[in-house]
């Protein structure tokens, strides 16, 4: 058992490592893609060579990041087949279909149009080139859509039916999978946060160039687009963040409770604006969950339900299967202990199904299949040893969520100020503190990456212990491998991805430094 836990932990660590590294490349591609497309649109409208030079400057940075980051996501698929083989089989064609669409889109759309984007300046008409740039940016976002649809299904499995004969989930509705509320909120929240990161990246690079007093006109042109895309991105990220919170409250209440360190829920539940968790707090003990907290009254009820007075269940309420309606009446849902019982009955039925199939008892086979699917949402609970096992890592979920929200608020202020300086440049030009603003802009780049990674940690750690919500916990999804085997590949990935990241940052910095020393008011091919 201890060996199995080690394999689970190492496999999770490996997946987290590769996913986070992959996600360092992706948002810049998504964000800069849109920014470059907007810049080229302005160039085509104004016919200004200065805008063409600015477009080409950022297109180079986009190209470096795209090239270094391309195919880093394929590693995750390797891991599914080797480390998570039970999951990969169990998930059936549901994961395969969106990933196949993603592969086709990524390959045909991005690889075709990115060639036109970089090689086609003098080969195709300006309008065709602009179309290629936009299609590359849109193609990247559509690729992200299908990956996020697959991820959303793991958070909220829908549009499928379990086939006990094949031990696979089979898709019954592609639309239900692709358009699930979880998929939609996840897609828009994630892609729009990438626009924010792209905008911040442009502001930060311009901050560095302004600090060095290089190509100031180019910087102001870049800032205009970067700040606008960033502001639109952060406003829409906040709006979609609100939608995400409502979706999580509805489909993953345990995650929401962990995000807030909420053990006992209440009507008109407050939200923690700032807090320090009590590290020794366990579910069902009498300790206060916080050592210190500043809370906003009614905040969590409103965030989760858009109703200030609604009841938001805490971790203990969810485990006990108790919630309350708006009149204060107790509403019993299914407790985790009951779900574990039901899960074990399903597990027994699965064994009986196997026996019935071998004895060719068709009546029993059909009856068991219907019974299994009728209560399948409790299947994963069969593998829990105790209800508390279904509680995610509360401190990690709590702190990353609050870090993400705090930095998100800061980014809103930062980008609004950047936009103000674009239209009132004299404020910045004449200010004695301008140097500090430029330094702040540079520091904001890594801060935004941390914010983005935190969002993913909330989404993934907050749904533990599930690989597929309610259907399959990690300890069952994992392959029968040795922990040492997974450790070896963990360190190989750590080295390879760190080398790629160093190459990415190194080449981008070198290109920015080199190009910023040339005159960016004229076109330099």
């Amino acid at each position, binding site marked *: 058992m201890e060996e199995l836990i080690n394999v689970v932990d190492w496999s999770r660590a490996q997946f987290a490592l590769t996913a986070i590294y992959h996600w360092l490349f992706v948002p810049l591609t998504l964000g800069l893609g849109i920014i470059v497309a907007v810049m080229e649109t302005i160039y085509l409208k104004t016919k200004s060579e200065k805008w063409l030079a600015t477009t080409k400057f950022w297109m*180079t940075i986009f*190209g*470096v990041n795209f*090239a*270094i980051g*391309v*195919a880093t996501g*394929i*590693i995750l698929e*390797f*891991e599914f*087949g*080797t*480390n998570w*083989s*039970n999951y*990969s*089989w*169990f998930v059936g064609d549901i994961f395969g279909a969106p990933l196949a669409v993603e592969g086709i889109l990524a390959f045909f759309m991005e690889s075709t149009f990115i*060639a*036109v984007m*970089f*090689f*086609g300046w003098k*080969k*195709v008409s300006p309008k065709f080139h602009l179309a290629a740039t936009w299609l590359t940016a849109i193609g990247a976002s559509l690729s992200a859509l299908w990956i996020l649809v697959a991820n959303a299904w793991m958070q909220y499995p829908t549009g499928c039916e379990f086939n006990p*004969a*094949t*031990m*696979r989930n089979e898709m019954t509705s592609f639309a239900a999978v692709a358009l699930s509320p979880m998929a939609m909120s996840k897609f828009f929240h994630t892609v729009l946060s990438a626009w924010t990161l792209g905008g911040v990246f442009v502001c930060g690079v311009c901050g560095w160039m302004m600090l060095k007093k290089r190509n100031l006109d180019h910087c102001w042109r870049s800032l205009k687009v970067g700040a606008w895309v960033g502001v639109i991105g952060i406003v829409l990220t906040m709006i979609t963040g609100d939608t995400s919170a409502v979706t999580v409250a509805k489909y993953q209440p345990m995650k929401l409770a962990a995000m807030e360190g909420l053990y006992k829920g209440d009507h008109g539940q407050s939200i923690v604006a700032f807090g320090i968790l009590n590290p020794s707090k366990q579910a069902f003990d009498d300790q206060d969950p916080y050592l210190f907290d500043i809370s906003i009254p009614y905040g969590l009820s409103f965030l989760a339900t858009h109703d200030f007075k609604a009841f938001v269940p805490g971790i203990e309420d969810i485990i006990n299967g108790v919630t309350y309606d708006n009149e204060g009446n107790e509403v019993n849902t299914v407790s985790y202990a009951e779900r574990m019982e039901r899960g074990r009955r399903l*597990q027994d039925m*699965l*064994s009986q199904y*196997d026996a019935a199939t071998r004895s060719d008892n068709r009546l029993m086979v059909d009856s068991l299949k219907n019974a299994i699917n009728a209560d399948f949402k409790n299947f994963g609970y069969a*593998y829990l040893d105790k209800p508390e096992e279904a509680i995610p890592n509360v401190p990690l979920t709590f702190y990353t969520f609050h870090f993400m929200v705090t930095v998100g608020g800061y980014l809103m202020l930062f980008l609004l100020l950047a936009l103000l300086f674009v239209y009132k440049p004299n404020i910045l030009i004449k200010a004695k503190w301008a140097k500090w603003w430029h330094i702040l802009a540079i520091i904001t780049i890594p801060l935004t990456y941390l914010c983005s990674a935190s969002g993913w940690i909330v989404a993934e750690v907050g749904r533990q212990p599930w690989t597929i919500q309610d259907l399959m916990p990690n*300890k*069952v999804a994992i*392959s*029968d*491998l040795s922990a040492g085997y997974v450790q*070896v*590949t963990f360190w*190989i*990935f750590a080295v*390879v991805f760190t080398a*790629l990241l160093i*190459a990415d940052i190194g*080449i981008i910095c070198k*290109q920015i430094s080199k190009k910023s020393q040339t005159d960016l008011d004229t076109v330099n091919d």
Partner: protein
Amino acid sequence: MSDNQGNQQGFWSRVFHLYYDGFRSMTVGKTLWLIIFIKLFIFFVVIKLLFFPNFLSTKCDTEQEKSEYVRHQLTDR
């Protein structure tokens, strides 16, 4: 040669030259392609072949055997 054939040949010729001239005139792109090829070699030849076999395929030969294997994994734990 018909006009249609001529247009088709012109199109494919233009596509070829788009890539050919593009690759020839690359500067930083050459370094990037080198990194891409090294990366793909490490990913697909070293990592995939040596460390990431399809686990179920190493245990089972047929789809039926794979579903049996997973069934045992899910019912015996």
